[in-house]
């Protein structure tokens, strides 16, 4: 069934042209990349853009490259691209692990990482992982280029720091000092298209500095700074993990919806933190489960 409302479709040849059209078209205009969120949202009448600006004809936006000690992802890099990139597998296998949990090949072949954070649904899989990696989002708008730290990116459910006329031009991800270990745990009712019921990414570096972020258990994916500070510099033990678990409720604000109850989400986040901390440390130490192994 066709989308109920009419809109203008503009295929941009350059990012500058995309910005120009987005700026001229006004506040309802939307960027179209993979379309796996935008198209069903338009059909659901959840968004009503008068103009849709397709950026897929712009050259070289699907590049994954190394820039010094940062990994750069172009705005058209798909989750399938993350899965097949040797650079990602070698430098940031956590991105590959995350990508492998996203929906199914038919979605991953199309859905982009940048689009995932632009849609900014609370359960977005890229959110927690980009948060612990402290990525930055490069955007271009009518007032020029700027960079937004990922922690300032998510403003609310389906709301981001992106302003009118702006388009994401890439993601820059600092590669943590070696050695490090990381894990993304995603709980879902069934494998495939189901969204996350709860998700957590844990990253630990050589000096026991932890970075932790939760997804699907609050209005936006968010870092758990209080738990990070509590754990900083300390060696994991059963007792320490149990104390950290007591801090989980302060770090999340889950709701009840058709995927899980608030209470279940709160409890499972404690379990996922336990498994995530242990797995991240064991991966750092070279004796953990291989990236991609499902631990929940």
């Amino acid at each position, binding site marked *: *069934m*066709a989308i109920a409302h009419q809109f203008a479709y503009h295929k941009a040849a350059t990012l500058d042209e995309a910005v120009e059209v987005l700026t001229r078209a006004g506040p309802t205009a939307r960027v179209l990349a993979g379309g*796996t969120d935008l198209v*069903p949202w338009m059909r659901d009448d959840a968004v009503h853009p008068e103009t849709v600006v397709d950026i897929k004809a712009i050259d070289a936006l699907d590049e994954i490259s190394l820039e010094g000690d940062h990994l750069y992802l172009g705005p058209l890099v798909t989750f399938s691209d993350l899965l097949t990139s040797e650079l990602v597998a070698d430098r940031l296998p956590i991105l590959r692990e995350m990508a492998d949990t996203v*929906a199914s*090949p038919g979605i991953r072949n199309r859905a982009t990482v940048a689009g995932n954070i632009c849609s900014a649904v609370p359960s977005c899989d890229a959110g927690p992982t980009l948060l612990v990696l402290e990525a930055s989002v490069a955007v271009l708008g009518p007032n020029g280029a700027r960079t937004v730290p990922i922690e300032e990116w998510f403003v609310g459910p389906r709301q981001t720091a992106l302003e009118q006329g702006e388009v994401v031009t890439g993601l820059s991800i600092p590669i943590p000092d070696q050695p490090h270990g990381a894990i993304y745990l995603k709980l879902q009712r069934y*494998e495939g298209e189901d969204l996350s019921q709860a998700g957590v990414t844990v990253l630990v570096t050589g000096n026991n500095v932890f970075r932790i972020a939760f997804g699907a258990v609050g209005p936006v994916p968010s870092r758990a700074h209080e738990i990070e500070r509590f754990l900083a510099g300390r060696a994991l033990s059963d007792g320490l993990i149990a104390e950290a678990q007591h801090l989980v409720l302060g770090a999340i604000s889950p709701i009840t919806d058709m995927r899980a109850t608030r209470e279940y989400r709160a409890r499972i986040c404690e379990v996922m933190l336990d498994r995530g901390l242990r797995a991240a440390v064991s991966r750092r130490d070279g004796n953990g489960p291989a990236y991609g192994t499902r631990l929940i």
Partner: protein
Amino acid sequence: MKLPINVTVNGETWPLDVEPNEILLDVLRNRVGAKGAKIGCERGDCGTCTILLDGRSVRSCLMLAVEADGHEITTIEGIPDNGVLSALQDLFISHNSFQCGFCAPGIVLGAHELLRDNPNPSRYDVQHALAGNLCRCTGYEPIIDAVLEAAGEDRS
């Protein structure tokens, strides 16, 4: 305002005029006549509308028709070679893999993509690759068995 597009479907080029709000799945079925792509959930959750776009599986219900301009599409109608079913399709038949058959086009295309990219999949690999294709009849086991046997034949 109608936009002119050129799309190749199963080797045949189709010049079409489409409205921006037309969905690719509808255009494939109603204008091109490729009705093997099925209308299921129309929101990307079920996999029955799966097609190959430039050789990679995508959900045709999640694409605007205008986005297909300049691309090559394979639907289930394009899988047999001059009317001869693929080895994988024959194995789906001999394993009695499908009952009502509504999910079959999407699963056949997804399995072809899997075997091309990973000729030696594990059982988990097959389950993982087809996780987005819902089948409400069979419980999936005879589908997975057929794909694994096809992989074995390719190896021999």
